[in-house]
């Protein structure tokens, strides 16, 4: 009796595997894909394509019956029930976290936007290498050292810094020229690394994706749903360049950024000092910091409290002012 009741459940489970991309180690979906003949390459996106379908139909095959469609009748399921199961599975797919590849697709697109909006790349290979040496070393001791981090300098005199998902960090030459030592640079980069390692922007993007009922970005990027990809990147772009993250996440990035730089051995006052410098200069410079971040004064006060535990030791840790200045001969 028990065996009989298990069989249909097992069969249904196998069929479900074809519809859902599991993130676990045993992926029925992939196994079934491997034994299914490869699909013909899809045509590139055309403007005549219909707009992105609502959530419930985004990942449906285009008129091709899926395994569930074929297997449903075998299990005694009517088409209505099969449809409901499919809807549930598509909802489940939206709940799957973004893959690292998808994270890079979003982050890479946003990084391109950063360079496009803020004056392109600053043409100094030696300085860029130095920023990478500091940044990659700090990132290595972050809580997410298993991804590759990339650091670039944008050619704008305004003090700005950006982190986009997937490991991209951009700082402006204007900000770099305001800093006084390497510990401050490590703190600033640490703050940006913390946004990536703590997945701050990514979490908001994921939340939005679920709210909007958007499924896999891979589907979106397949050429049929480019509007969907635009929608995701549009949201992320607005978050990074206009509205900013939740202020709590900025304070968190300050704490973690300080911690990451401290782990590498830098004086833990680096980021705090840079906040003071930026706060002082804010009145005479234009920066998007003011609209996307809490005030420097508030961040400085909050961080001062948070890093008290380091103070007793801070004198032992280097700030590396001389090395820093060797890359900034025109430092005022």
């Amino acid at each position, binding site marked *: 009796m028990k065996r009989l009741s298990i069989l249909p459940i097992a069969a249904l489970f196998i069929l479900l595997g074809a519809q859902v991309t599991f993130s676990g180690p045993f992926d029925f979906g992939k196994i079934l894909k491997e034994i299914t003949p490869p699909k013909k390459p899809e045509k590139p996106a055309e403007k005549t394509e219909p707009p992105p379908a609502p959530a419930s139909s985004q990942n449906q095959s285009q008129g091709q019956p899926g395994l569930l469609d074929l297997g449903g009748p075998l299990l005694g399921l009517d088409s209505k029930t099969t449809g409901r199961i499919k809807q549930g599975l598509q909802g489940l797919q939206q709940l799957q976290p973004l893959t*690292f*590849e998808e994270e*890079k*697709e979003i982050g*890479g*697109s946003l*990084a*391109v*936007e950063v*360079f*496009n909006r803020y004056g*392109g*790349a600053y043409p100094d290979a030696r300085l*860029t*290498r130095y920023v*990478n*040496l500091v940044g*990659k*070393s700090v990132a*290595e*001791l972050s*809580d997410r*050292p*298993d*991804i*590759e981090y*990339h*650091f*670039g300098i944008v050619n704008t005199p305004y003090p700005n810094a950006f982190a986009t998902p997937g490991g*991209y960090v951009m700082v402006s030459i204007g900000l770099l020229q305001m800093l006084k030592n*390497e510990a401050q640079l490590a703190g600033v980069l640490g703050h940006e690394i913390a946004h990536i390692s703590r997945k701050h922007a990514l979490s908001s993007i994921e939340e939005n994706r679920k709210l909007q009922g958007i499924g896999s*970005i891979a589907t979106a*990027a397949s050429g049929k749903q*480019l509007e969907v*990809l*635009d929608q995701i*990147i549009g949201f992320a772009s607005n978050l990074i360049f206009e509205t900013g993250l939740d202020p709590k996440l900025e304070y968190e990035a300050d704490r973690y950024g300080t911690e990451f730089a401290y*782990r*590498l*051995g*830098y004086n833990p006052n680096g980021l705090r000092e840079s906040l003071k410098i930026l706060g002082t200069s804010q009145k005479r410079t234009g920066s998007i910091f003011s609209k996307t971040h809490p005030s420097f004064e508030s961040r400085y006060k909050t961080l001062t409290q948070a890093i008290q535990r380091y103070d007793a030791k801070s004198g*032992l*840790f*280097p700030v*590396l002012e001389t*090395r820093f200045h060797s890359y900034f001969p025109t430092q005022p």
Partner: protein
Amino acid sequence: MTRFLLSQARLPAYAIFAGIFFLCGTFLTVPAYAKTMYVKKSGTKLMEGDSARAKVLGTLKEGTPVEVLRHSGRYYEVAIPGGTKGWLFQFYLTPEAPAHAPSGGNVLEALGGREQVSARESSSATSIRGLTPVSEQYAKNKGISPASVDAVKQMEALSIPREEREKFLAEGNLGEYGQ
């Protein structure tokens, strides 16, 4: 009833102190570093001593569990599976088991060529390199200048050899080379 129980629970002061002493003894005599931690990334060097300049015994794979034996400066003495002891820079370890556990076999990789390879090459997450075609397509659709696309490609292409990074850290007394 409650009052009765409380009055019965009232014990002589020496008995209470003896109890506290016993409890403290039970918990505090556990060695402070007798805990399991995990290697954060592949290629982490296991050293013979508590210094970056000590002899390298080998490199460990991401997710390798180690027993922390003691602490010296910014280093932990650890025992790896199989019993080999050595020293690791403390921030290369995490108390949480990473998603990428070692695939089995010898967790201590041989020195030599493997040591020169970036640790990240073994990670499935980081096997995805370069600006993705999706990002390029996005830029093209948005009419973003090729120079901005190239700027991100150059960021991706900039690779720093381990030797250069170690020299940088050593000169600044940072990381494993710090106090």
